[in-house]
């Protein structure tokens, strides 16, 4: 399990980072989205992977705490997902506005030779 998920995180990161270094704004926005998947999964994985562990408490008694999944990384990631959405939205609009103002979708706001 761990091996597969970490391979997934690694690939998502690599694809994201490669796109971050590309010259077109659209590539960068896709890259950021891929990178945020990777980061969310990474943070989530810090609470360790548990299959079929209850995430919801039994009403009444709590009982053995070790049965449950770790709620803290989950709460963090939940926040991160929403902020990630906000970031994507903002970046998309900045991208569009920049394209409207400069006439190009290059990240520098003007075409560079050799890209």
């Amino acid at each position, binding site marked *: *399990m*761990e*091996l*597969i*998920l*970490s*391979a*997934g995180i*690694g*690939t*998502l*990161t*690599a694809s*994201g980072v*490669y*796109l971050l*270094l*590309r010259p077109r704004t*659209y*590539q960068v926005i*896709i*890259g950021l*989205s*891929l990178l945020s998947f990777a980061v969310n999964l990474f943070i*989530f*994985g810090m*609470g*360790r*992977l*548990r*299959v079929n562990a209850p*995430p*919801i*408490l*039994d*009403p009444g008694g709590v009982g053995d*705490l070790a049965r449950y999944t*770790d*709620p803290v990384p*989950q709460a963090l*990631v939940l926040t991160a*997902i*929403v*902020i990630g*959405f906000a970031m*994507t*939205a*903002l970046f*998309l*609009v900045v991208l*569009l*506005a920049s*394209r*409207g103002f400069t006439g*190009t*979708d290059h*990240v*520098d706001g003007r075409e560079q030779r*050799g*890209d």
Partner: protein
Amino acid sequence: MTRPASVLAGPKSRPPIHSQGDKTIEYAEKLLSVFILVPFAGSLIAIFFPSDQRGAISWFAGAIALVCFLVTAGLYPYVASGGVLHYRIDWVPELGLNFTLRMDGFAWLFSALITAIGVLVALYARYYMAEEDPVPRFFALFLAFMGSMLGVVLSGNLILLAVFWELTSIVSFLLIGYWHHNAHARDGARMALTITGTGGLAMFVGLIIIGKIVGSYELDAVLASGDAIRNHPLYGTVLVLVLLGALTKSAQFPFHFWLPHAMAAPTPVSAYLHSATMVKAGVFLLVRFWPVMAGTEAWFWIVGLAGLTTLLLGAYFAIFQQDLKGLLAYSTISHLGLITVLLSLGSPLAAVAAVFHIVNHATFKASLFMAAGIIDHESGTRDIRRLGGLFHFMPITATLAMVASAAMAGVPLLNGFLSKEMFFAEAIETHLVNPLDTVTPYVATIAGMFAVTYSLRFIHGVFFGRPPADLPRKPHEPPRWMRAPLDFLVLACLVVGIIPAQTIGPFLHTAVLSVLREGTPDYSLSVWHGWNIPLIMSFVALSGGIGLYFLMRSYLATAVEGPPVFRLLQGQRIFERVLVTLSWKWARWLEQRLGTRRLQPQMRLLVFLALAAGASPLLLGNFELPPLVIRGIDPAFALLWAIGIACAIGSAYQAKFHRLASLVLLGGAGLVTCITFVWLSAPDLAVTQLLVEIVTTVLILLGLRWLPKRIEEPVAAEDISIRVRLRRLRDLLLAIGAGGGMMLIAYTVMTRPLPETIASYFLERAYREGGGTNVVNVILVDFRGFDTLGEIAVLCIVALTVFALLLRFRPQSDSLEAPEQQKVQNAFDDDHPDRAAGDSVAEYLFIPAVIMRWMFPVTGMLAAFLFLRGHDLPGGGFAAGIAMSIGFILQYMSGGTRWVEERLRIHPLRWMSIGLLVATATGVGSWFFGYPFLTSHAQYASLPVVGKFPLASAILFDLGVFSLVLGATVLILIALAHQSVRAPRAHAKAARSDKEAVR
């Protein structure tokens, strides 16, 4: 929480000695806060005075200074004979950061000086400032300065001291630059700020090191650990840093040159800041740290050398000034040098003399600045060459100025004489056997002689000699009350000079006692000490100075400004050179060599640094690779991620030429992430991820239309240049490095057992205290509710930014045309006579559109369901808000913008503000029950049909979250969707105007 800290303030040499009960001391300690609160509050109020109310506002400022002075006077019994008052508010006690005010005898003396001269300067400024000057700004800054200066002298915590110290620098910058239309004022202000600000920063570092050595930033603790500081290996560093602060502030050589340039300030400012208070902050600091830092060889050399050079050069330069205020500025520099020399000697008697001279200098120099201001005000010039014979026009002012400058020259029966005698007496004592100590008496006598010369020049050049011929104004006596501060100060000079022991004596003793404590020496303040060497030195200085003046008189009457030879070597010129080199030449050179405006190299550097920073601990430490566990892998999970990995790589590969394909693949990777969350027992994340995924995809789809067309042309492999290939290869390697690193770290961490975390804290309390079984949701809306409030505020800001950016959005012309598909559909309509244009567009995807319309109430239901169960089961405000916004977006997609807005009331801005208000109000609500912000209360409620559901006050908060998320998401999506409606209209309009232009 406030508590008087006399019990907590750490080590203290002795408890306050007093006869009053504990109640009155507590009261007195509370009064200390007046010194900070009242001036700053006054400053704020002063800004709002109408600018034509010169009289009212100066009365106001004067009254505030007077209140502070009266409080100071009232506190005297508590500090007399060694008492110390403390007032402390804990801020971050763990870091030693406290708002501690501390008043001992020495701080009391300074407070008295600051507030008393403050009253006089406020009165003086009322007459000095002209009708057209923006007076409220002046008095606001004046009061702010008084507050900062009182803060410096009363700070009981080193960090607080540094803060107030910088505040005095900043306010003084604003005051020097008060007439900011004048280039001299601007330059002078900038120079003063640069020099004292740099010194202040150095001092700040020094103070932090002291704090580390002592283990506390509290002044009491620092003053009790003199030996620890002096014997510490970092003593030299601390000394240099702290002295940099003190010497720059007190305009000591080689940092003296800012003070003459600061004379571009209004004269009340000069009288207050540059004679009595701010420049004294440096020597104040030297006295403050005298018990813990002085007495070493390094102290003697650095402080002594700076002081002696300043004493001599300042006095020498003062002779050659043609500007009255310039003369006084250099004289101030010289007198500060005298105080510095006294403090360098390390003998208690010299320290007494230093404190005494601080007070004396403040009185006579403030009065002389005021006299110079009166002369300037009434005659229109401050140039000594043009002035003369003014005694005839303003006899009273002239007499006052003569007494004050006699005090400056050190004439017997005046206060300046007393401290100067003490200085001479100390100068001839041998403290350490070295050359510096040997030359001190000679330098002292020569400087004394120069002081007589320039004092005489001030008097003789202005009030006597030929009457002035071409003055801008006809001189006369100033208004009665403008002269009153002068009267008072000169009277003080006289009284202290004649009966010192009965007037200043007890106060001086209190101040000295608080600094020197057990080491307080016996000293005598009497005027007559018999025929001794200091008296002879005084006579030499007096007669020599008079002789020198009459020798140089004719030269000075016509000379240009500044001393011969030294004139060429101007500190100001050097300062400007250094500044230009540093801030322009070197900076530009560096920027040209290292800077780039291109984003990609910066990103590359950033990724590389992050990679290196992440890899270095692994490479340097002995990192062991965890064993590879292949067993126990679920084939279905492996297949899932095989798809996920393929999607991620495919999305990256297609992002340049096939945006839609890339987006679809991105969605695929997102879905795999989502399923992973379900698989690994995180249903909340899965729900939110799925919903956000939908919204993000719609959002980017809406944006795709406005991007330029890019069609992949088949390029032969050999046509791609080597440079491009190399760059891509490098990026690929960086990316693989980053991905590999993440994989390694993730795998290593995940295969290790989980240590004890705070998870159990939340698991145990979620139901008991938060009233919900969905721990994740309880953490978000209850335990960490404040974070969530911040987060939704961010969302709100982003939505508004998006909205604002799109209001001014101007698409490129190539994106304006109708999309290809629409053109085809319209062409079809045109070809068939039974169809009107636009019919095909309206009927496009007709059946799905009908279904989508019907789905609206269902989506609403889903959102309500997610919202209500949120506290106990997966769901919550976030998920519900996004689900609801998807419902709206479906309507837009099926019916088009106009169709929806004719039928539904869409007010995302209102929803957002209601959401934010509800969430905040829920938080505030707990205040009314006496609990901290956002404390929640939980219980269950039941509704018919729905059944029992949790009803915590957190659900109200969650309702706010819901409303805000809904509003923000809808606002973002709609703002983008509206562009397609706007653009064709704008396009049509542009086309029409083009046609009209052609006609």
